[in-house]
């Protein structure tokens, strides 16, 4: 008896009833329509409410229909998939709306003039002026903080991964974890009390950079540590077995292998501190004029500019527009940094091509 006749006579145990491919889309469309209908009928106004109703309907509807047609196991699989989709949309919706809002309000005054002029001769309520001084301040303060914290952070991580054993390493790890949780205002107050109040230095970009360093350091240490741990031990042993000293092994084999991940970690840390307002407010004070020297006198910075424009505007439309445009610039700045980091990570990643 051949297989063909066998399979012709018996029902297949491998094939079962299955829903068509457009099933998920149909359920999604139906639940959105239902969600809109229900909220219109009940007179709900918020768009969040109909979206939540639609989300619940989508998951429940998928399960109900799939359980009936395909069976329980397939229904569970479909529910897991649909929950992932709903969660994804819930997470992306606020981000998309935030970017949309910032772009649509920010482009009004964002042009070359805005990027290359300061607020020196413009009152807060008047139109005109720009953010050149704030961009300069942010670049200098973040740049200084990066210059201080990257060497210290990377070296600390190298110590923890390659050398650290016993109590000192445990203590360092513990304090790095504690530092991760320090609120930015506390970092600002610490520098304020030591640098400005005790040592009697004036407010400056450098003082702000020191507070930003406190915030950046633990992020750099943590991410670098994780990246160094990912480097296979075999590579270290291969290098040591060639008679290469340990420090050169770390410098020439371990660090190059991990450099892509380390760069990404540093860029994420930069993105985190670039938006800090509290320590800058305490230590750099802000200014409407261009101050290129970060080591003396108050400076401006983008997050503080946004805050001050909003706070001092007195309901004026011009200041509101400038605040939005500055926010858009800050987001764009961080996005460019992230793209650059990805580029570097891809460029430096271990190659596998033939």
């Amino acid at each position, binding site marked *: 008896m051949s297989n063909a006749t066998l399979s012709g006579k018996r029902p297949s145990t491998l094939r079962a009833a299955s829903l068509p491919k457009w099933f998920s889309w149909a359920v999604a469309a139906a639940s959105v329509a239902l969600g809109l209908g229900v909220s219109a009928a009940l007179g709900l106004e918020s768009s969040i409410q109909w979206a939540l109703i639609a989300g619940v309907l989508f998951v429940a509807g998928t399960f109900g229909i799939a359980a009936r047609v395909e069976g329980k196991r397939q229904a569970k699989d479909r529910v897991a998939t649909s929950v992932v989709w709903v969660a994804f949309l819930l997470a992306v919706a606020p981000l998309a709306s935030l970017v949309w809002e910032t772009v649509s309000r920010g482009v009004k005054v964002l042009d070359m003039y805005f990027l290359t002029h300061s607020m020196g001769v413009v009152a807060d309520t008047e139109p005109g002026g720009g953010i050149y001084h704030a961009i300069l301040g942010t670049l200098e303060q973040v740049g200084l903080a990066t210059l201080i914290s990257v060497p210290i952070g990377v070296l600390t991580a190298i110590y923890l991964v390659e050398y650290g054993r016993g109590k000192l390493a445990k203590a360092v790890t513990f304090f790095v974890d504690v530092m991760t949780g320090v609120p930015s205002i506390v970092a600002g107050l610490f520098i304020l009390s030591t640098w400005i109040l005790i040592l009697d230095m004036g407010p400056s970009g450098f003082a702000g950079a020191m507070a930003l360093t406190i915030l950046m350091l633990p992020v750099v240490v943590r991410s670098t540590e994780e990246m160094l741990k990912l480097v296979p031990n075999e590579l270290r042993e291969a290098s040591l077995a*060639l008679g290469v000293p340990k420090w050169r092994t770390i410098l020439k084999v371990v660090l190059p292998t991990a450099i892509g991940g380390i760069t990404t970690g540093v860029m994420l840390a930069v993105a985190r501190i670039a938006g800090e307002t509290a320590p800058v407010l305490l230590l750099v004070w802000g200014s409407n004029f261009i101050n290129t020297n970060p080591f003396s006198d108050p400076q401006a910075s983008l997050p503080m500019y946004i805050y001050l424009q909003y706070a001092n505007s007195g309901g004026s439309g011009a200041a509101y527009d400038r605040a939005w445009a500055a926010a858009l610039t800050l987001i764009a700045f961080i996005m460019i940094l992230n793209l650059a980091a990805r580029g570097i990570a891809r460029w430096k990643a271990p190659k596998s091509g033939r």
Partner: protein
Amino acid sequence: MAKRIDVSGLNAYYGSFRAIEDISMTVEPRTVTAFIGPSGCGKSTFLRTLNRMHEVTPGGRVEGKVMLDDEDLYGAGVDPVSVRREVGMVFQRPNPFPTMSIYDNVAAGLKLVGSKKKSEMDDVVEKSLKGANLWNEVKDRLGKPGSGLSGGQQQRLCIARAIAVEPNVLLMDEPCSALDPISTLAIEDLIGELKERFTIVIVTHNMQQAARVSDRTAFFNLAAVGQPGKLIEIDDTERIFSNPSVQATEDYISGRFG
């Protein structure tokens, strides 16, 4: 070039656990010595004590003497880095440096240790790749990453990297266990050529391989799990495989083990 290794009363520990106990043996220059024995009997650990790689493992500790000609590797003031330049090593899994090209992988030992002129470096790279029977396969793509080669080619690249620094002794820790029979044959042929210049010690789980490539064979065993591994006997390969003096060796080789 090739040097004699003379081990006496060697114990190796992982923390407080003794992994190998009281090993004494002599490895003659310009020969291939194979280590065989069941898993966990301390072959690899012993191999790693021969170029002071054992102490790289956290908690790793060694007692006893390893004489390389007339110098004790564990003597006072001996720099493990210089030991590893004299005694090279090839690992079980091919591990070329992923960030480096084929050329840089072979030159890694020289570049990372000291500087040489470009023309000298070219010569060394060509000589080492020829020595590892890899030159013809890679000469047109020396600038490509080493991780793009096949497993067998990668392992020969690692051998080229190890012999580029001109060690006296070459240790191989199951160099063929991740490779197919064809690549294994290539490496075994290579071992036959390399023993003209180096003292070679190879750990293997493949008894036929030990019989094919080695001049002398050492059999290691352990009394029970958790007990330290011991050297049972070392003799000419022919004798070990035809007429060993210890019953346990015969049982292991003939498959009547355990």
